């Protein structure tokens, strides 16, 4: 009896070892697949002997040439543009999203349900559709081409109130009794927000800032519309997209790789530092729908 039990448990242990080994193999392969493009991009950014696409990865000659070429190109301007946009959007969008989500979470006013339903329906329209008109409006205001930066900030921030879902979900989890207790003690609604709710909402504030800061680095379509071929008004995505088009890829391919590294490093570092908050926000958002 004892022997059979022992045998069974040994069998179990063996099968667990096998399955764990399999999992380790899969995980290692996955990590490699997920990292390969980024390793390649870093390696190719140091390639000196040629600037176009080649079929091998490891450079034959190493050097900083591509980064120096980057420094001497319009890339500086694009980088600065994107950074300014990202910074401004991170601040302003956070304020707007917090106003919106806090209000919809805490106040019960007459048009609240109608407003939320209306915004849900608005969100079903493809945003692409509104670009043409927004472009014309910005053009009338003189905020396109070389002045694209304030124009882009305006558009990103103005429509950001629609993205309140995740942080509203967070505010919903803060017990209402806290508000009520403070109100009994004579605090106004505004004081409740600034003195009690905001300090508790630190994770969601950081999440909102982080996502708002990261989005402009990747925005491509609208930014391309607004800059309209003027290099001074481009962001990194639009500028570097041009380098991979047929007429330029021969000279600019390795520069694109170098540029990609320069863009990715600060964003990635910031993201990894604040990863905890991002994970909380994403998970919470999915659970609440």
């Amino acid at each position: 009896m004892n022997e059979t039990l022992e045998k069974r448990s040994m069998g179990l242990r063996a099968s667990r070892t096998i399955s764990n080994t399999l999992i380790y193999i899969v995980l290692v392969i996955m990590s490699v697949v997920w990292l390969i493009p980024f390793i390649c991009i870093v390696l190719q950014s140091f390639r000196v002997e040629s600037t176009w696409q080649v079929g091998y990865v490891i450079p034959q000659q190493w050097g900083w040439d591509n980064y120096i070429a980057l420094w001497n190109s319009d890339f500086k301007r694009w980088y600065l543009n994107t950074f300014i946009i990202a910074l401004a959007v991170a601040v302003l969008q956070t304020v707007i999203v917090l106003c919106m989500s806090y209000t919809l979470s805490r106040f019960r006013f007459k048009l609240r349900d109608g407003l939320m339903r209306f915004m849900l329906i608005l969100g079903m329209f493809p945003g692409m559709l509104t670009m043409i008109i927004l472009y014309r409006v910005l053009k009338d205001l003189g905020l396109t081409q070389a002045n694209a930066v304030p124009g882009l900030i305006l558009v990103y921030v103005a429509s950001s109130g629609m993205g309140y879902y995740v942080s509203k979900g967070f505010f919903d989890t803060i017990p209402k009794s806290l508000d009520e207790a403070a109100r009994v003690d004579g605090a106004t609604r505004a004081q409740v927000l600034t003195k009690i709710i905001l300090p508790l909402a630190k994770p969601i504030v950081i999440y909102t800032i982080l996502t708002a800061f990261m989005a402009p680095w990747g925005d491509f379509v609208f930014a391309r519309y607004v800059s309209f071929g003027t290099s001074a008004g481009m962001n990194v995505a639009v500028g570097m997209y041009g380098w991979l088009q047929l007429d330029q890829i021969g000279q600019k391919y390795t520069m694109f790789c170098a540029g990609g590294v320069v863009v990715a490093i600060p964003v990635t570092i910031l993201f990894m530092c604040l990863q905890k908050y991002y994970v909380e926000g994403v998970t919470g958002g999915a659970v609440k729908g």
Partner: protein
Amino acid sequence: MKRYSDLEFLKLSKGQKFLYKLTSFFAAIPRAIGNLFLAIGRFFKNLGLGVANEFKDIFTTFKEGDWKTRASFLVMGLGSIARGQVLRGLLFLLFEIVFIFYMVTTGGYWMSMLPSLGKIGPHDEYNAVLDAYTKTYGDNSFKILLYGVLTIFFIVAFLYTWRMNVKQNKIAQEYLKAGRRLKSSGDDLRSLVDEQFYKTLLALPLTGILIFTVLPIVFMILVAFTNYDGTHDGYNNALFGWQGFSNFRTLLTWSGSGVNYSATFGEILTWTLIWAFFATFTNYFLGMFVAMMINKKGIRLKKLWRTVLVMTIAIPQFISLLYVSKMFAKNGIVNGLLLDLGWIKQAIDFWGSTANNGLLPRVMVIVINIWIGIPYLMLIATGILMNIPADLYESSRIDGANAWQQYTKITLPYMLFITGPYLLTSFTSNMNNFNVIFLLTGGAPTNAAASGAAGSVGYTDLLITWLFKITTGAEAQYYLASVVGIMVFVVVAVISLVVYNVLPSIKNEEDFQ
């Protein structure tokens, strides 16, 4: 169909249960659509009743009002000022003055032009000084449409404010009659940071949404009923005007003027739905699978595996997607490697192959989308999986359940139950996933069968990338793009409505606590 009670349902065999669930799902769809129409009917009935009530109320207010109230019907805010609510009264008055000034100076012009979208187009006019004909510009259809819509918004706002002003008078009159104190200007200001703090908080976000989201959407919906395009740009080349439903007919008829639009549209829509389905569910199940592997007891370095995946989220998509698309190019790294290894003789054209309706590029975008999407889903799934009570697994193991049974009976129902709404939104946002398609393939390879359609349609084009292509270039057919956009909205709205109405019934049937 026959409905079973809970007890009868439990007696059914597995296959019957599944069949029953399936038929009740589809049986619920007509009811959901029926309910939708009922709801629309109810909405209009309530709207009609509401409007009638408003008019009755305005009338009685005038009949029973004193001179202050009656004067306010013409000069807004007069009653409030006369009763000592100076701040409110002044704001009403100011709004009226601004409104009248705007309507007299410019608003009237936009409104009068709105039905025709401009009368005088660009034309050659005799210039006596130069003794020659020079090009003269007339009305601007684009501005007429834009500012016309804005003026309508303004008029609606004015009517609402006027109604509020009348209501204020009525309330104030009743308060004074009952001997109660009216709110002073100071009270009004104080309440903006207290009871009515929501008004302060919402003012800025809603203004932004109104001007930068609602106005453009209304405008673009209206464009679908005009002939606004590159040649009819409304100012430089020619005016554009109202066309009725003809653009919708162009898109939906089976044989338009030489161009078979509806076939093209149908093909792109089908691919869009196929793409959205695979993009959503491959990511969902594979992401869940990866999360379960990392979460498994006895696996070490959990944090490392997670970090590797999460890091890829941080890198802006335009870098990773553009780079990956070049990796798989004909002269890219992947082909180079395969050729070096001698596994293939000729470079594979990953993005250009048109065989089998572009099957290879289509599969490629789905596969690369998995690469993009798994890290997100892994994060989400990890969070949810950790919340599943561990004793469920323990007790099921004691009952002799194997890993697969545990997955299908515990993990999967729990995940689906919690992430149902997320799956829906993820499906609809995949339908509009512009970045992945545009940065990877740009819609290529070109679909020769659809060569007549606007915007050179490709096999991997989604409706949204097609829409974008239509609006670029000198021949930009904005009206067609706008029709396509409306169709996307209709599809998304129908899917969302049907699924939302059916979703709770599925949830209830879930025998999961």
